[in-house]
């Protein structure tokens, strides 16, 4: 899959990406999909707690925070800055 190894975990603060593939084997990842983190969703990295983990993302107007270890299961295509 041509996704260059980019995941939600690799987004910089303020950067956006579109989820292209979710590795859904882990039941915890499936719970995150129920919250709307699925293929086609646009996600923006908003902030991180001290030490960069957990990370906060913006998903269609709502804030959602994930740990890096889970964010790595969401492969993305970064959206160019400035939309």
């Amino acid at each position, binding site marked *: 899959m041509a996704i260059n190894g980019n995941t939600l975990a690799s987004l910089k603060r303020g950067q956006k990406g579109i989820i292209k593939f*979710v590795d*859904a*084997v882990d*039941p*915890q*990842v*499936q*719970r*995150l*999909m*129920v*919250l*709307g983190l*699925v*293929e*086609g*969703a646009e996600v923006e990295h*908003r*902030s*991180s*707690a*001290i*030490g*960069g*983990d*957990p990370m*906060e993302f913006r*998903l*269609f*107007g*709502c*804030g*959602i*925070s*994930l*740990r890096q270890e*889970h964010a790595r299961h969401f492969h993305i295509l970064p959206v160019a800055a400035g939309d």
Partner: protein
Amino acid sequence: MTKSAEIRIPPNEITLSRRADVSVVVVGNPNSGKSTLFNRLTGLKQRIGNYPGVTVERHIGTLRVDDKVTELVDLPGTHSLSAHSLEEHIAVDVIFGRMPGTREPDGVLAVLDATNLYQGLFLVQQLIDLELPVVVALTMTDAAEENGIGIDFETLSRTLGGVPIYPVVATTGAGLDKLRHAIADIRSVPVPDRIVVWPELTDAAAQLTEGANEPIRFAELERLLIDGPIDANQAILAKLGDAASERLEPIRDELFGLEPPIARDARIRYAWVRDVLATVQRSAPRFYSWRHRVTGFLNRPVPGTVGLFIVMAIVFQAVFAWATPIMDLIDTATASLGASIIESFGEGAMSSLIADGIIAGVGSVVIFLPQILILFLFIILLEDSGYLARAAYLMDRAMRSVGLSGQSIIPMISSFACAVPGIMATRVIPNRRDRIATILAAPFMTCSARLPVYALLIAAFVPANKVGFMNLQGLVLFGLYLFGIVAGILTALLMRKTALRGPKPPFALMLPEFRRPNLQTVFIQLLGRAKVFLYRAGTVIFAVAVIVWALAYYPRSDEIGPEVERQKTQAAYSLSGEALDDAYQRIENLAAAAQMEQSWLGRAGHFVEPVFAPLGWDWRVSSAVIAGFPAREVVIAVLGTVYAVGDDADEGTLSGRLKASAWPDGRRVFTLPMVIGLLIFYACCLQCAATLAVIRRETNTWRWPVFAWAYMTAIGYLGALLAFQLGSA
């Protein structure tokens, strides 16, 4: 209402007021403004109970419109009808009408957050499949407008199978009246048309129902196909019958293949939601309000964390400083009330019971109502503004280093008010080990019942010197809070490394935008808290006050009375005037002390004194600590009683009496090391029957409450021992 008006009520309306005609469940995402809306709709006409067998609170309110009475059931927030946590299971069971003791709903009030249609529509779409009348309340429409979100209500309603949509603004009350009427008339709302989001699922459901025993709702078939034959779905399987049930697995295999069903469901439904959003939602360029600037700043890691600590420090300072004037007022009032009772009724068992038992006992607990209300006010404000979730996010990494997750921070912070709701709040933690570790750590957080003890001892024995912008008293209080946090964290760490060893718990958290809490809702919640506290003061603490008074008053000694008379006569020979009055007072105080000492409580205190002597406690403190085992705030009531009937009765208020208290050889009992030890003991020990009971309920075994009690008492004892021995050396 006047009496004559009551008489005119026809009998059938009286029965209506007892039983509602219609039951409506309130369903929505967590943080969708669901509870705020529920409070606005039902006001004070609500009752809080529990669902049978579990500790999830059941909130039922009554809505009266004209002559129609509607029962509104506020369900725990959920993202999907595919339940994961205990609270979601409860919500889904009530929605499907399979919760024992709860009516099958006649309709659904779906709460949809206008600023978060994405997750909201995911849930609402599943609610439409219930084949029940649905009314949608669109909340946060003001915030949506502020964010530049425009919503095409008509298209949205059409897309959702024709459900009526009522935009509301909970803060101003706009739209609430129309919504009330719509809920009252929910039976006349047509069942919405089914939306075919996922044709393959519809086909599979049709295959499954061939030859079923009885008709089954589409929503139930969906759950069976997606979640499989789990426990919660057994009732649906029974309706399906054996023959149809056997087809379930082959049909699921064909439908999902190797893809996890929950993942497939989320992928398809959210794709549908995105299509809907594209047609009904218009986003203008966002207008940057104060809300976004505050959020933006606090989103940065360091300012966010520093902000959290500042918020906590302000809360503690406010609790201590703002309440003082009102507390002084209550203190003076109870002291003069007790004195005037004794004065007007004379001395005797009855006036002693009223003045020393009831007024002194209950009064010295009620005095802390201002502090408790201020603390709860802050906790409610932080929760309703969305800040508690942010605290969980900011603290996740720190909590993880002790083997917990950020989700544990909400139960922990709630425990600062009271460990009982705090422990109940651990239900949001899905992992059992994580949950028990949090339950064991939670009672270490300084609860509102510890506050009276801290406040009394600090006010009496710590000087109010200025230290920076705080004073020393505030600083000591802050230190005690910190001590509780550290002890709780170390406990969690210890448990996670030993008895509760296991893999790291998961974490995912919704972070709502900051929002202005609604004052009416805050007030309703605060009133509920005040009621609970005063109810405790009025029942448990009242009963304990009376029992302790009796233990301290009886048995009456036959020898003390004549001895007092003999000494008074003797004094009258050699003294006169003021000197004689002083002598009389001294004799009476000594007599009271002697009576107290040979009472049941005094004897018990003497009996355990050797155990507590290494901590510097005399028999009175020991008696108070014993009496306080069922509820720690009672210790104040007991000290109040013990010292009111003791030898220092003329010293006025309780803190004055404590200061004057001395050992037989004249040394002060309440020295600084002893007070610090006592504070540490109270920071640790688990003197709270309610907490023990809730731990038993939440862990479903006596093992954990017994362990928690022994463990915390032992730590408290050792801490007090250490403080007294090192401090006095």
